[in-house]
């Protein structure tokens, strides 16, 4: 059988790398300036886009906010590691996680039409209980840092490997670009740039897969080379893939959407009638991206890429490796880099917008309602600068952020079911919410220490504890919450500038 020949890879040079990063930044800035000039006149516009996001921007923004850098690198990596089973278990829960928000978002938007944040909901729902609010805000803040750090790191690794620019420099430059354009236009800028980024994700995915197949000798050769290896690579029934991407991964994805403020920002920013179909398409349109990039994983298998020798043991490096070793034209490598940067920037700007909304609503609207519009606008933006500064400090300071990521996942996993119960169950109260979350967190950490080799055990412990504790406490609660109270929440007081 004909072999796929890999070529010697070479870096494209630092100057072209800076040009690529700078060009994308300039386009983002242009869109942001236009959005700001036309659509952002007060804090309400800045944090929630005046609740005027439409269907098109809603769908595209959701796709883009949901597609992390790992969402670009992993389809190829998991296909390479586990064959089609890996791609199946990675891809299918990914889209469903966004769709899963629909019933809760619809209900909450109907009950609380002037809401902004999920922590504001927790606060109102539990009568201003401080602990409940702190628990909800903690999940969001940790999630924000997770999104910013993971995406900046992922983009930096890819850009650095292709252009030879030091990772730290990429992190700082990319963060500065996102910060500038998000500071200018808030949610409108975030959604407009994310809409463009969705185009940058969908079309290049197809072109990279098609041209990749050309350089690998054609789809037939690739398919036959993978089939010849056997090992269940072309089936979706491999048990090891389920063990790696099954329950744990699905839960992590669902917590990222339901407990993630960036998604609630979009949900409350969308016009009422557009919410359901926007989230449906937002989830559905991630699938083609994963399906397209998964083809690269099959090419990696067909080309017998060596995990240790070629990828230094990290299968996530497969896509950049193939792009630079399959003999693809340079323009396509630039397109891939733009894709990765686009994914990074749109996720980071979504996270920053989430933090700015928390600042405006959970701090200023609640505790300092009478400050001037100007002061509130200033601090809303300052919160974004603070998040970027801390994230960069963590990245450049060499702090091991794996612990941060684990804590974030644990908090979000623990808060998921209590949050859902708060939305749908009138007997849920603050004690049940806080006890459920905290006990699940503690039980999860203990399970993790005892069964460090089995993520399924610690995941199951978190899920069961976070469900059973609030259900028991809630069942004992004789009072039923009147959801019509949520309708009393008002918009931020604004004065048009």
């Amino acid at each position, binding site marked *: 059988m004909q072999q796929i020949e890999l070529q010697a890879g070479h870096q494209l040079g630092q100057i072209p790398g800076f040009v690529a990063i700078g060009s994308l930044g300039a386009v983002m800035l242009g869109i942001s300036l236009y959005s700001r000039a036309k659509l952002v006149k007060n804090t309400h516009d800045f944090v929630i886009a005046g609740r005027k996001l439409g269907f098109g921007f809603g769908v595209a923004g959701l796709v883009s906010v949901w597609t992390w850098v790992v969402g670009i690198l992993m389809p190829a990596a998991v296909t390479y590691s586990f064959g089609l089973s890996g791609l*199946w278990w990675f891809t299918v829960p990914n889209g469903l996680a966004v769709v899963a928000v629909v019933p809760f978002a619809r209900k909450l938007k109907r009950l609380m039409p002037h809401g902004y944040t999920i922590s504001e909901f927790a606060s109102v729902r539990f009568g201003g209980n401080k602990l409940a609010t702190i628990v909800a805000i903690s999940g969001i803040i940790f999630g924000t840092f997770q999104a910013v750090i993971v995406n900046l790191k992922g983009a930096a690794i890819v850009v650095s490997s292709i252009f030879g620019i030091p990772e730290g420099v990429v992190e700082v430059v990319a963060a500065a670009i996102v910060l500038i354009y998000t500071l200018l236009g808030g949610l409108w800028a975030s959604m407009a740039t994310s809409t463009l980024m969705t185009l940058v994700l969908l079309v290049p995915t*197809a072109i990279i897969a098609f041209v990749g197949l*050309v350089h690998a000798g054609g*789809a037939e050769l690739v*398919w036959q080379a993978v089939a010849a290896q056997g090992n269940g690579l072309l089936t979706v029934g491999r048990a090891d893939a389920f063990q790696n991407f099954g329950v744990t991964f699905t839960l992590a994805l669902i917590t990222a959407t339901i407990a993630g403020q960036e998604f609630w920002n979009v949900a409350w920013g969308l016009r009422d009638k557009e919410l359901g179909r926007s989230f*449906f398409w937002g989830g559905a349109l991630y699938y*083609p991206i994963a399906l*397209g990039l998964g083809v690269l994983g*099959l090419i990696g298998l067909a080309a017998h890429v060596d995990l240790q020798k070629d990828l230094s043991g990290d299968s996530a490096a497969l896509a950049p490796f193939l792009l630079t070793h399959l003999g693809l*034209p340079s323009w396509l490598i630039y397109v891939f880099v733009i894709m990765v940067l686009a994914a990074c920037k749109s996720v980071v700007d979504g996270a920053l917008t989430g933090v700015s909304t928390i600042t405006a609503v959970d701090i200023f609207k609640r505790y300092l309602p009478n400050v001037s519009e100007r002061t509130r606008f200033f601090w809303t933006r300052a919160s974004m600068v603070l998040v970027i500064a801390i994230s960069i400090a963590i990245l450049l300071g060499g702090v091991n952020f794996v612990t941060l990521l684990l804590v974030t996942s644990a908090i979000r996993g623990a808060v998921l079911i209590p949050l859902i119960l708060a939305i749908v169950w009138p007997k849920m109260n603050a004690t049940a919410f806080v006890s459920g979350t905290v006990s699940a967190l503690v039980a999860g950490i203990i399970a993790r220490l005892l069964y460090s080799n089995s993520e399924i055990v610690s995941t199951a412990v978190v899920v069961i504890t976070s469900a059973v504790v609030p259900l028991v406490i809630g069942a004992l609660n004789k009072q039923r919450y009147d959801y019509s109270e949520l309708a009393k929440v008002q918009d931020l007081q604004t004065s048009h500038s």
Partner: protein
Amino acid sequence: MKSFASRRQSHHFTTNPNPIRASLLAATALTPMGAYAKSESLGLEKAVGLLTGEPTVSLDGWIAFGAIALGLILTVLYLRGMYLVLHYASETYGVSLDAVDDAEYSSRSERRLLYIGSVLLVVLSGLIISAYGFGWFLLYVGPALSLLGPLVIIVSMAIDVRKCRRALGELPKQSAKAGAAGPLSVGQESI
């Protein structure tokens, strides 16, 4: 490897030995154009080779070229849609769009199709991954869906623009579907 285009030409010539055609081809072969065609690939083929980085263009190369061409067309339409959405969002700043009934700017079948399409894509994606294992030609399905993905957003943006235009009174009322809501209340939002 011979190019896809040249393979097609030689096959046609051997099965249809037309003397006029043969003499025309022979004459052409003596001209600079003929020399160009023999030594170099055709212009389009050259472009395909340049874009895909393939020295000789294969069937897969032509498919990739088609994808690039379609991608460029969709990009133009998408950017136009983006501009229009931002423009009309600005034009309707302070105008309540919630008062525009769905039926006034999009048909029932359009809305139904959009819902069914999204649900189908969610369900089918799992099947498509499984289908990759059934035959090599199915490997093209995922990338093809990705290429066509922007169409959904282009249509969505067109619906948004139609809604804004309806709110601004740019679209005539007679285009509204039967049973649409009464006169549109366009008022300042109380923010």
